[in-house]
């Protein structure tokens, strides 16, 4: 036993099937075609990526679809070196907010395509405002990992 007092393990493992609804399948189908689709609010004019059913600010339905560019600028980022249970991938990796050209909000994804082992070098390479573009997965499953990551544009 790892602890010096008496304990019991209590693992909670449960299965789920999450419904995507009407809007998100269209977004994911777009990824399959290497397109990033957003929705535009008729009231405030903002373009949201990923697409949403309704405008998070105006609380009105959004029906207009807009393709945004698979490239944009880094808003902010972090280099993850911490390991933890159930992590999505083996550190080190970079998670960033990216403002895609044509969108009015940040898009969360990985940044990669280069050596991440040296933190100093990563800091030198990744600057806020730097341009990145989507690296597509050769095999597409219509989910967020159809984009492998965003890579710096030279």
């Amino acid at each position: 036993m790892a602890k010096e007092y008496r304990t019991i393990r209590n693992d909670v493992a449960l299965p789920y099937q999450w419904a995507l609804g009407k809007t998100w399948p269209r977004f994911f189908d777009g990824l399959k075609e290497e397109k990033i689709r957003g929705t535009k609010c008729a009231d405030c004019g903002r373009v949201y990526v990923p697409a949403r059913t309704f405008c998070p600010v105006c609380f009105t339905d959004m029906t207009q679809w807009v393709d945004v560019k698979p490239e944009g600028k880094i808003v902010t980022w972090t280099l993850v070196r911490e390991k933890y249970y159930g992590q999505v991938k083996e550190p080190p990796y970079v998670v960033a907010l990216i403002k895609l050209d044509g969108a009015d909000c940040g898009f969360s994804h990985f940044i990669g395509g280069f050596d991440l082992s040296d933190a100093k070098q990563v800091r030198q390479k990744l600057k806020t405002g730097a341009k990145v573009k989507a690296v597509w997965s050769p095999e597409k499953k219509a989910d967020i990992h159809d984009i492998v990551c965003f890579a710096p544009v030279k």
Partner: protein
Amino acid sequence: MRRVAITHVAQSSGAESRESLMDFTYQINREILDKAGLKREDVGCIIAGSADIFHSGLSCANAFDWDGIGAFLKEGSRAEESAMSFIYGCMRILSGHYDTVLVTALVKGSENPDNDPITSFYGDPFYLRPVGINESVVAAMQMRQYMERYKVTEEQCAKVAVKNLANALFNPYADRKRRVSLKDVMSSERVYDPLKALECAPKSDGVVSVLLASESRAKKLTKKPVWFAGYGCSMDHFNPGDRDLLNGQLKTAAAAAYKMAGVRDPKKKIDVAEVCEPYAFQELLWCEQLGFCGEGGGGKLIDSGATQMDGALPVNPSGGVLATNPYPARGLYRIAEAALQIKGEAGEHQVGKKVKTALAHSTHGFGGQCHSVVILSA
């Protein structure tokens, strides 16, 4: 309007406890009832503060909590975050239905997985969770923006950890007790660059209770009632990309609390603040948004020494969340500590100046998605 006072406070240490969660809870509520000279039956209503995902794998947390908080066949309820539980307790008294309410928040971090895997379940399963978003990741991204936009330095952020962990040495209930130097913090592992290990809060155990009473009842129960003067809370957008991480909802929450409490100039009026800073730099950012200094002035604020224990506006004399982080209970810990400062009962970490008005703050969610501010007065 009726008035509400905190009459008594009881808290456990934040260190790992070998008690079962039920007994751990019972001991603190037994203590607060004894302090107040009350029996379980005398309390009007009991509100728990606990969150399922932070609850040892026992879902419907209130079910397990019910016995330990002393709520058998009593009126009661549960809110998922403890500042919310506190406010709900105040509502119950303000409504005129109850004269006493016991509010208890509880968690055993030592029984839970780390906070990072837990907070990743805040994320939706389609977009945010699959790309590794959790509270620390968003905080790190927020920190980078904060430093770049306002030219706040990494050292200034690290100083918060140095200050709060030093304060914690004087708090018998603190979890992380270790004097650290600026160099220690700066050279600690860059877990989420630019966030360093010593700038991230630990995972603590904790049970904390406050007894609330109506004005007439409070005056009978204690010589030093601490009055609930103001409250504000505000929720931000879910997706971190939909917001400006440096301009969130804390200003809105603070404005509401100050308005209710009649605070015009927080810098002058607030004598001490207990701010929820699970990440060191957040104390600086939150201080700006609470109006303790101008926008981007957080770095200078810490340099000035004003937020030190003996400064003009001490922040986190208890050591804050960086020292003790019983996640869903940490908001009520801030409120309890603020109340102790007003009562003059904070012991070795009592601040130098006389405290008439204190502020307690709580936040949870990615990059501070939800903020609560509570103002207490003597």
